[in-house]
Structures are given as C-alpha cells and as structure tokens.
C-alpha cells in the first residue's frame, strides 16, 4: 500500500487529468509543510486555479453588473463571477470548514448543474470545476459540511505526514501526455462485473451515498488512463476503493468484524468458504466474488487504525459527526435578518449600502448636472443604509441528572418533561442543547440544534446509574452557556436533578466535598447572570436542590411527581 503522501501526489495527477469528473479534494491538514508542499504542487499542475475566500459575496461569486464601469461608461458592463472563471479548472477553498452555508449552497448548485447564473442579470455561463477544500478543523469541530465532502472524490489526511516524506517531488504531466491520457480516458469504462464489485464493497463498508460509488468508478478509469492501461484493471479498482470508498466507511464489513484487531487483509477464511460453495454450484460468479474480496481487503488495509476504533464504537457516533453540521452553521446567521436597505445617512453603526445607493441615484443621472470628469452624480438623498432585524433567539440547555438516585422511575418522567419542552421550543424556533451527567462524567448529548428528531434520539438512548456530579454539570453548563452567548444566542438553563451531589468537581466520591463544590459552581452560575430553572426531581424534596437553586438565583420547582405539562409551563414562564 502506498503511504499517505504518495496517495496525495497520485490524487494530484488524477485531478490534473479529470478535474471535473472527480469533483475535487478534501484536504484535512493544519497549516504546515505538508499542506504547503501539496498546494505548491497543485499550483504547478497548470490547472486553472481560482482561490475563493470564504467571505466572498454573491456578486463576485456568481458574476453580475460591474457598477463602477457601468456608471463610468454609461452602458451595462457585466463581469464574470469566480465560478465562471473557474470553468474546467479548480476552485480552491481555504478554510472550507468555516464556509457560510449560503455561499456553499451557491457553489454546490453551480457544480451540480455545470452552469452559473449571474446575480441580477439574465446571462449564465458554463461552470464545471473541481473543488479543493482545505480543512483546518480540530477534532471536536464540525469540519467541512458533509454535503460538500461527499461530492469530492479524494479525502486526504495530511495531518500526520513526516516532514521528510513530503520532499518527494511530483512530475506534473506535460501537455502532450495529458492529451494522450485524456483521449485514452474517453475509451475506458468499467465492466459490469467491476461495477458490481465496487457497489458491493461500498455496501459492505456502509457507504450509503451513491455518489461515492460513481466517483470510485470514475477514479478507477482515470487511474487506468494514467497507467496507460487499455482497460480498467484490478489494480485501478483497488486504488479507487482505497481512495474513495475506504475513507467513507461507516462500518466494518461483516467478514472482518470478527477480527477487528488486524486490519491487514485477512478476510480469507470467509472468502474461501464463499468461493468453495460458489464453485460447487455455479462457476461463473466465482470471479467477481474473488474480485470483491480483493477490493474489500484493499479497503480494509487502507482504513486508518484510529478509524477502526471509532467504527467499532458503533455507527451512532459517526452519524452525529457527519450530519447536522449545516444546522449548526445556521446559528451564526441568526444575528440579523437582512431587511431591504432604507434611505438614510451612514454612520452611527449604520453601514452604507452601496448598491442601493447607486440604484437610487441611477435613474436620476440624466437630470443631474455633472461636473467635468465626474461620471456619477450621487447626492446625499441617494444614500441608503444596511438594516438588520435582530431577534436574539434563545437556546435552552437541558441538564439531565441520569445518576442512580434519579435513574429509576424519575428518569423516564424527566425525559417526558423534556420532550414536551422541546415541542415548545420547536414552536418558538428556539434551539436546544442537551447535557447529561452521571458518575464522574458530563456528556453533551446534543450540541445546540433545532432538529427535534436528533434531540429525541439523544434522549432515548440515555442510560441511567452512578453518582451525582452536580458541580461538574454546572461547570459544563456554564461553558456551554458562554459559548452560546458568543454565538449570539441567549442561553437558558433547565436543571433536572434532586440536588443530592455526591461526586466532587474532580470526579471523586465524597458527599460533603461534592456539596461544597456544587454550591461553589451554583454561585458561579449566578454571576453569569443567565436565567435558569431548577426542577427538583426527588421523590421527597430534601432541600438540597432548593439551596442550590437559591445560590444560582434560579427558579425552583419541586416536582415530587414530575408532571410533564407543568415543567413545560414553568419554562414558558421564566422566558
């Protein structure tokens, strides 16, 4: 198997041959020598490379009217957008993990349709391109949105590349070679058996999206053309499986699950069995079966070891990581809903809306006396300013006590109450964040989301048992609240617990210390000044919860028998 750097270089060559067909590259790597070396080689490929900053505006992205030229020349001058300029080339997206979702939507629409429509003009331009998305996200960040990632054939991870490795230089294809390879590529096609094998491997690895299989098929052809094969060979398929399918795997293939410790190709025993039975009954399908096994082995060999651990933990985790990122990205956009610009003087926080100003001035140009040399006559009465309607949305942090004392009947009831609460916040378009605490750990079951399906799932899977780490829970809730505030939302805490802390802030046992820690963090919460509600879930309230809630300056609601509707009502009240 090739090492990561060789693969990355190979990806470059493939991209040079067929940028449009392969969709592009997701490059996960921090700023560093490996990334720089790779990008430098990308620049030397001779591809039409357009760098797209993540704060690009629609006019520049899609093309539109060039206002300054139009005004100076007195006729409409349009300019092509970046996407049209990138036709048959590559769009380089630095910080793709931070790309605003509306920009992404435009990008993907153009890539899907191969055509870009200008903003404010009727014309459209062809726009077929590959995307190179640079991802610098850390482990616990959402990273590049899945909808972009899945359109890109190559998922490269250059985070753990040795400095010396990336000194190996790449010989870019010459013009002549490139035309030869591209004309060879046109004649290449995977056989039905090979396609079958690719799809089977994709299914075995739990790669659901059909785009993956299509990209793998394409890559196999490109690789064959690169190696001057006259037909698609096993080697090409192997490469495609390693590059496209293996990184997307969401589960271990059934045959390998029994021996997860050895990712090296050892699915032989089941493969042999299959082959034996097959050859006994029907000889013809034996070959594709062998082909699939070989491809599966290739995929297994290229699964990174860390990924294996993650996969073995079950599909649930990878699911939450892969989806929902676009939902989260929306949070940052809730700061203001743009209103149409209105007439007024800029300044005092109001920003001049250039376009609207020019729009207001444009029809009057003929009437106005222009100074010599002046092309546009703009008067103060034309000034328009940008407006936003700001409606801070709130996010309810639900902290659930899942400890032993709360576990038995209470947990189920509390879940019911939270369900109702979620319904209410759904109606109000609030978001919800659920954290659970038990034993010595606090867990964010669900980062702030508006998706109730996910909230519901997160709650349903919550187990109970263990000590009650109230201090830890409050600490975690405070951190969450501050993060939410930074994102422009108003946090609101709902604590569901009996208040009987018995795990300290260090995560150790000891009732007295635990109570003290809890009190300390309760006071800390009060200092933050966010609203909160404490619902005492104890069967017989003992006063612990009441004391803590007083320290938090929270509303206290004893709820010996948590009545779901009452909880929900109470929350509506403190808002």
């Amino acid at each position, binding site marked *: 198997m090739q090492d990561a750097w060789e693969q990355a270089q190979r990806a470059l060559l493939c991209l040079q041959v067929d940028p449009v*067909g392969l969709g592009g590259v997701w490059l996960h790597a921090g700023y560093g020598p490996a990334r720089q070396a790779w990008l430098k080689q990308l620049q030397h490929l001779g591809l039409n490379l357009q760098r797209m900053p993540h704060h690009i505006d*629609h006019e520049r992205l899609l093309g539109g*009217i060039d*206002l300054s030229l*139009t*005004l100076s020349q*007195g*006729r*409409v001058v349009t300019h092509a957008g970046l996407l049209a300029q990138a036709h048959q080339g590559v769009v380089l997206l630095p910080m793709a993990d931070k790309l*605003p*979702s*509306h920009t*992404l*939507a*435009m990008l993907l*629409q153009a890539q*899907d*349709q191969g*055509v870009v429509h200008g*903003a*404010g*003009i009727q014309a459209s331009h062809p726009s077929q391109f590959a995307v190179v998305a640079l991802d610098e996200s850390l482990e616990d960040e959402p990273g590049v949105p*899945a*909808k972009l990632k899945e359109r890109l054939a190559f998922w490269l991870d250059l985070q753990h590349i040795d400095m010396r490795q990336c000194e190996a230089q790449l010989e870019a294809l010459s013009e002549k070679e490139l035309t030869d390879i591209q004309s060879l590529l*046109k004649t290449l*096609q995977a056989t*039905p058996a090979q*396609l*079958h094998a690719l799809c*089977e491997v*994709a*299914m075995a690895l739990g790669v*659901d*999206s*059909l785009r993956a*299989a*299509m990209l793998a*098929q394409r890559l196999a052809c490109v690789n064959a053309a690169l190696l001057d094969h006259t037909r698609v060979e096993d080697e090409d398929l192997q490469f495609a499986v390693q590059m496209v399918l293996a990184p997307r795997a969401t589960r271990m293939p059934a045959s390998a699950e029994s021996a997860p410790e050895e990712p090296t190709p050892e699915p032989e025993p089941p493969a042999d069995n299959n082959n034996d039975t097959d050859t006994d009954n029907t000889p013809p399908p034996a070959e594709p079966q062998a082909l699939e096994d070989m491809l599966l082995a290739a995929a297994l060999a290229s699964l990174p070891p860390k990924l294996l651990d993650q996969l073995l933990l079950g599909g649930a985790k990878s699911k939450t990581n892969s*989806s929902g990122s*676009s*939902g989260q990205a929306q949070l940052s*956009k809730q700061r203001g*809903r*743009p209103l*149409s610009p209105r007439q007024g003087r800029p300044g005092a926080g109001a920003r001049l809306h250039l376009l*609207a100003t*020019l*729009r207001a001035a*444009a*029809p009057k*140009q*003929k009437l106005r006396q222009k100074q010599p040399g002046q092309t546009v006559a703009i008067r103060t009465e034309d000034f328009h300013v940008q407006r936003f309607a700001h409606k801070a949305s709130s996010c309810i942090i639900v902290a659930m006590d899942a400890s032993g004392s709360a576990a038995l009947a209470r947990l189920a009831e509390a879940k019911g109450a939270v*369900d109702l609460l979620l*319904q209410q916040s759904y109606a109000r*378009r609030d978001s919800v964040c659920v954290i659970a605490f038990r034993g010595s750990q606090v867990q964010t079951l669900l980062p702030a989301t508006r*998706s*109730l*399906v996910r*909230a*519901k799932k997160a709650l349903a899977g919550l187990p109970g048992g263990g000590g009650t780490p109230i201090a830890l829970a409050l600490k975690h809730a405070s951190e969450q609240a501050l993060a939410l505030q930074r994102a422009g939302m108003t946090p609101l805490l709902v604590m569901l617990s009996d208040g009987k802390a018995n795990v300290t802030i260090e995560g150790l046992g000891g009732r007295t210390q635990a109570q003290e820690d809890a009190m300390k963090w309760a006071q800390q919460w009060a200092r933050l000044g966010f609203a909160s509600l404490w619902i005492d879930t104890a069967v017989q309230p003992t006063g612990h919860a009441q004391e803590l809630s007083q320290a938090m300056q929270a509303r206290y609601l004893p709820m010996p028998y948590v009545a779901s509707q009452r909880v929900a009502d109470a929350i509506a009240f403190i808002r």
Partner: protein
Amino acid sequence: MANTFPFAAIVGQDEMCMALQVVAVDPTVGGVLVLGDRGTGKSTAVRALADLLPPIEVVLGCPYGCSPKDHHNGCEHCAALKTDKPKTAKRPVPVIDLPLGATEDRVVGALDLEKALSQGVKQFAPGLLAQANRGFLYIDEVNLLEDHLVDLLIDVAASGENLVEREGLSVRHPAKFVLIGSGNPEEGELRPQLLDRFGLSVEVRTPQDLDLRVNVVKRRDAFDRDPDGFKADWADANTKLRQRILKAQKAVAQLEIPDDLLRLCAKLCHALGTDGLRAELTLMRATRAYAALHGAKKVTSAHLRAIAPLALRHRLRRNPLDDTGSGERVQRSLDEVLA
C-alpha cells in the same frame, strides 16, 4: 440550460417519481416534500421534470410566462396587450432552483439595474418566483431555508401571486408554482406552516439492493460520458411517459370521485385528526390524479389506499418529535377505514 438526466432513466425511488408525476398531472395537489439521505437522486429527479413535461404555451414576451388562455387575470404585461389573441410561443416547463443563500432581491425580483443604469428607466426585473410561474420551484434543503424566505414563500405559495412593494416599485404578478422541497430531517425541522404547503411528502432511502445500485451508477456514468447520446437512447421511454402524463392531465378533468369515496376520505382525515379541510381536499385531488395517471375510468379505494400515506403523513397533528410512526399511523387508519 445544463443537460438534464432523462426522467425515465431514473432507477428506484418509485415513490418519489410517482409523487412528482401526480403533481405534474394536477398541480393543484400542491407541492412535494422529499425527505431523505444525501446522494439518493432527489435533485436529479426534480431537475429531470423540465425535460419530461410537455412544453407550455405562453404569451410571447411575457416575463411571467402567462398562458394565452387566461392572460387577462394577472400580469401587467398581458393586461396592457390590446388584442384578445396575443402572439404565443412554446417553452419548456420552468423548473427553477432556489438556492439556500438566495437574497430576497433575487427571489422576489427587484429594480432592473441594467435598465436603470443604462437607460435611466425604472423597470422591474422579475425574480425566481416570476420565473417559476406555471412550473416548479425547487428548494434543496428546504428545512435550512432562512426564516425570512420561508415567510415569503408561505405567502406566495398560498396566494399564487407575488406582490412587490419595494425600491419604488409596485408590481403584482402571478406566481403559481408547484413547490418542491427536499431535505434531511436530521438537520433541522420544517415550519408547520410551510409543511402545510406541501401536498405530498415522500421519504427516500439509499437503495440497499445491489443490482439497483449498480444500475444507478452505470446509467449515471453513461450519461456523464455522452449526455446527448444517452438522452437519445431514452427519448422513446421519456416520450411514452410524457404521453401518459398528458393523457392523465386530460382525463383528470373528467374523472368523478364517487360520494362514498369522498366519505372515506373524510373519515380517514377525521380518524387521523388532521387540521382543517385542506388535507381532505389534497387527498381527494391526489387520489384523482393518481387514478388518472393509471388510466383508470373510475376512482376506487385502491387508488386512495396507494396515495393516502403520501398525502397525509406529514399532516398528522402529532408530537413533532415522534415522526417515525406517522407513516404507520396512516396505514393503520387506512386499514380500519377501508376495512
């Protein structure tokens, strides 16, 4: 226009294709909401509609594509025409993509900058809503659409006209379109009001059948290699499908729904506790369109049974958290009512 994949060549996703055909037969059924995973061919199917449907006749030069038959009610352009028999042109059914980040200007329409700057003329440049008139408006990831655009759509989808009062313009134009939305419910919820604007809802899953998947990849590859050749290969099948829809469009006006079937519809909606009469109306129209599509002479309870889950499952007055069971709930009520 970019090349679109032929509708007839779409493999699998029968429910989605059926729903799209039903609304093509009778646009008054309302929109289609497609929920499901990525990479399942949602966008492909919707964009393929443009090619599938027969071209429509429009008043020549009308920016909203008014029909020559009823050009009196609605747009300014056609109202200003002197004749009763305006010149006409044919053009494909519009299938307009509304991207998530679209500005309000782009959607609603705005002052025509080109004209304003070059000629100093104040004129309205129609937006996406105008372009979508008499066709389809497709919103991918409709559940992530900004609230202000959702508000706008809810209004226009209900009234069938777009009223623009901005930038010194005052324009009213027809905007009757079939709303098609797709999205992944795991990423965000849909506003109940917007949900209500969709007549049918379908759920799509990645096909788990190997041969089907191989077929999808094969056809897509063939299309990518030679779009024109591929389309020519499928032209016959596409034409056949188009004929079927055309026939159904004609037939649907003649089809009567027997009273006892109407009573069944009402009973079903009552049993499921859906709000208002819209559910019944949609159910009735969808059943009729479905029957017409299948060339039936009479609308029967079998047609109702087939289409009811699509028309009702997103309308259940339900716990918004618990949408896993809505399909089954409709099925159960169906079994009870039709028993």
